[in-house]
């Protein structure tokens, strides 16, 4: 039997892979997609409409396995979706937390849904402050793709006219709650913006997807598809074309090359049978997520590519960036103490944001360069966490928990690290995964600039809270450990110079023209915004570039 050659092999089915798969299949390409995990079964795997008392451990997990949980989204509600069979290591002095959903759709099954565009001020940051290099693209080039993605997935927000936050095409915004209006008044007194977030949550029916029913459990999955996820918005469209073959439990091992060093397919492990299988294509798209993509490419060693495929620059795996997350301030609003409960929980942290306000007019205004954003949240939530801070017991304790219920607030900072030579991914020389494949080793520490942002955010958020009439009760002792945000970028940065960058401005690797990267690996840094909408946007652009190259006869 002649060996089957697909047009394109896509590794990964999350935001980047899902968009590539959809775009390519709709253009008539035969695509074989490899996904490291299984398909989720909404009936069994999405448990978000269960009440805690319907769960064996009240949603808290079996205490015996709790130490094995990764991150805030990994709990009894989502247990079946997280998959940590493939280990990773950290270099001495480095810390990294890496929650992985290898299921079809990846982390889009559970994401936070904040969806702000990157801005001109982000793409040209180096020109403005002299650190690192500019992106090889301008905002004007990318903006039309953002608009198309927003129309595709549905993003709720308002027009805000801020230099760091270009406006897009929006559904009606989520409404402000009492706590938002109080904090907004405090923020305005301190000259800090407090605005509706850009949120990929459907405030009205959109493209055949139902409106949100505001149950407030988005980060444990949505089985009606009322916010964007690859399995609800992208993969069904690809499957409808009959051009997609999706192989699950298919752990990509390395990219295969032909005699000329071009990509010819992918070798993967079928995790069910433990067999290694090869699949062939005229082009390969890597979209396994920043760290896993670089691991696959570094493991793709051959005569042509002894240091990993498309790594003649030596930059593959380098320049890992991440968002520092942490609770900059917490406290409560006395105005709301004793008030009736209110549905504050309907969108987990993404109703409002305090978008970057630092270093906008003058890039050197603050003691740090660039800027950070903050997500405020609070009010009546699933559980009265603040009870821990109250004294006493008995009827007065119970009454005080009830009185305080609408009042707690907190501020979470999202601050980008700068590119650094010391933050990168390589292969662990000794440790291998259960299939004998070398694992990723992560070298990462917070930089001085991002820690200055952290300190700055603590001061400003406490100040905003007090200006709102709130009671400041403290900040986290330290930020969350690196990796927590799930916003890693870098490792295959895009740029015009093949000696310094892994891919060109279209996400096509300089060394291997039929190898493309469609995830946050290509980003130069992580900016103060979340990454998903930009992954979708750049993946759409890269996929169309790939189609064009095919039509020109390049592949």
């Amino acid at each position, binding site marked *: 039997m002649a060996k089957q050659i697909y047009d394109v092999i896509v590794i990964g089915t999350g935001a980047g892979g899902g968009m590539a798969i959809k775009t390519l299949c709709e253009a008539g390409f035969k695509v074989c997609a490899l996904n490291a995990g299984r398909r989720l079964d909404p009936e069994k795997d999405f448990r978000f409409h269960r009440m805690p008392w319907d769960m064996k451990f009240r949603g808290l997990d079996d205490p015996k396995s709790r130490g094995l949980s990764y991150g805030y989204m990994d709990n009894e509600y989502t247990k079946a979706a997280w998959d940590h069979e493939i280990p990773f290591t950290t270099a001495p002095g480095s810390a990294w937390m890496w929650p992985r959903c290898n299921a079809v759709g990846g982390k889009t099954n559970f994401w936070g849904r904040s969806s702000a565009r990157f801005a001109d001020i982000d793409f040209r940051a180096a020109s403005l402050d002299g650190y690192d290099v500019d992106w090889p693209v301008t905002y004007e080039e990318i903006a039309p793709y953002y608009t198309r993605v927003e129309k595709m997935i549905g993003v709720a927000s308002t027009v805000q006219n801020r230099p760091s936050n270009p406006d897009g095409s929006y559904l009606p915004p989520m409404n402000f709650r009492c706590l938002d209006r109080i904090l907004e008044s405090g923020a305005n007194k301190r000259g800090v913006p407090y605005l509706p977030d850009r949120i990929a949550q459907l405030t009205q029916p959109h493209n055949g997807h139902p409106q949100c029913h505001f149950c407030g459990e988005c980060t444990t999955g949505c089985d009606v598809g009322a916010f964007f996820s690859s399995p609800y918005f992208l993969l069904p469209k690809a499957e409808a074309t009959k051009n997609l073959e999706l192989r699950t439990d298919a752990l990509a091992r390395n990219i295969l090359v032909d005699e000329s060093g071009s990509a010819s397919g992918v070798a993967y492990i079928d995790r069910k049978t433990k067999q290694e299988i090869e699949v062939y294509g005229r082009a390969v798209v890597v979209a396994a997520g920043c760290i896993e993509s670089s691991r696959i490419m570094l493991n793709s060693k051959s005569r042509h590519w002894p240091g990993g495929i498309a790594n003649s620059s030596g930059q593959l795996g380098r320049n890992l960036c991440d968002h520092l997350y942490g609770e900059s301030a917490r406290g409560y609003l006395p105005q709301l103490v004793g008030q009736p409960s209110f549905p504050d929980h309907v969108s987990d942290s993404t109703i409002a944001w305090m978008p970057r306000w630092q270093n906008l007019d003058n890039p050197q205004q603050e003691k740090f360069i660039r800027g950070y954003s903050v997500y405020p949240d609070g009010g009546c939530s699933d559980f009265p966490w603040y009870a821990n801070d109250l004294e006493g*017991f008995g009827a007065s304790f119970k009454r005080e928990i009830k009185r305080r219920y609408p009042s707690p607030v907190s501020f979470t900072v999202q601050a980008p690290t700068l590119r650094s030579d010391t933050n990168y991914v390589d292969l662990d020389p000794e440790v291998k995964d259960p299939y004998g494949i070398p694992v990723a080793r992560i070298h990462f520490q917070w930089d001085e600039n991002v820690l200055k942002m952290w300190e700055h955010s603590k001061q400003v958020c406490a100040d905003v809270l007090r200006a709102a009439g709130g009671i400041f009760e403290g900040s986290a002792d330290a930020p969350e450990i690196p990796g927590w945000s799930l916003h890693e970028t870098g490792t295959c940065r895009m740029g015009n110079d093949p000696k310094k960058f892994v891919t060109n401005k279209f996400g096509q690797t300089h060394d291997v023209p039929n190898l493309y990267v469609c995830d946050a690996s290509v980003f130069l840094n992580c900016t103060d915004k979340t990454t998903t909408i930009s992954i979708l946007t750049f993946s759409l652009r890269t996929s169309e570039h790939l189609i064009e190259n095919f039509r020109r006869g390049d592949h």
Partner: protein
Amino acid sequence: MAGQGIERRQVLKILGTAAAAAQVPGFSRWAFACGHAGNAAAQIRPATYQPVFFTTGEYASVERLCDLIIPADETPGAKEAGVAEFIDFMVANDPEAQYPFRTGLTWLDAESDRMAGKHFIELLPDQQMQLLEPLAYKEKARPGSEEGQAFFHLVRDFVVTGYYTSEIGYRQLDNPALKLYSESPACPHMDDPEHTRLSPSAI
């Protein structure tokens, strides 16, 4: 308030059938089928619960502590919410909590023995509260009672967790997750952005 909440469980009931669910665009048949069937049966408890981890004596103290920490007033308390059973279940599954609970309960009996020559469970309610107060309030704390304070807070954490993850606890707080909303809920106090003129609470 913009989003008129519907009782979540009513929705579950209404949308429990495929026919009803099919009328809501995009709602697949499993959308609200959340394993609630059989829940009522699970809530019927035998008259005397047989603890899994605790001894009968220890369990009586745990149950009493539940009642003291979150008592019944206008709404049912931790005892009615079955929190002692929750604690027994969780501690039975949590090797790290077993030693602190066991030694803590022993400490509690030793302390009440020192105070009144009796086990904790045999003290009068007033005496029990008197024993707990120095553990619960910083200004009443006595030097040397750190062990007791740590135990008290461990128990209190478990009681709070058990109570506020129970249906009774959700109802006590009027937890908004009991309902679904037809639109994004909005602040109803449009003329009072700083919320300085809200009517004083009745709570």
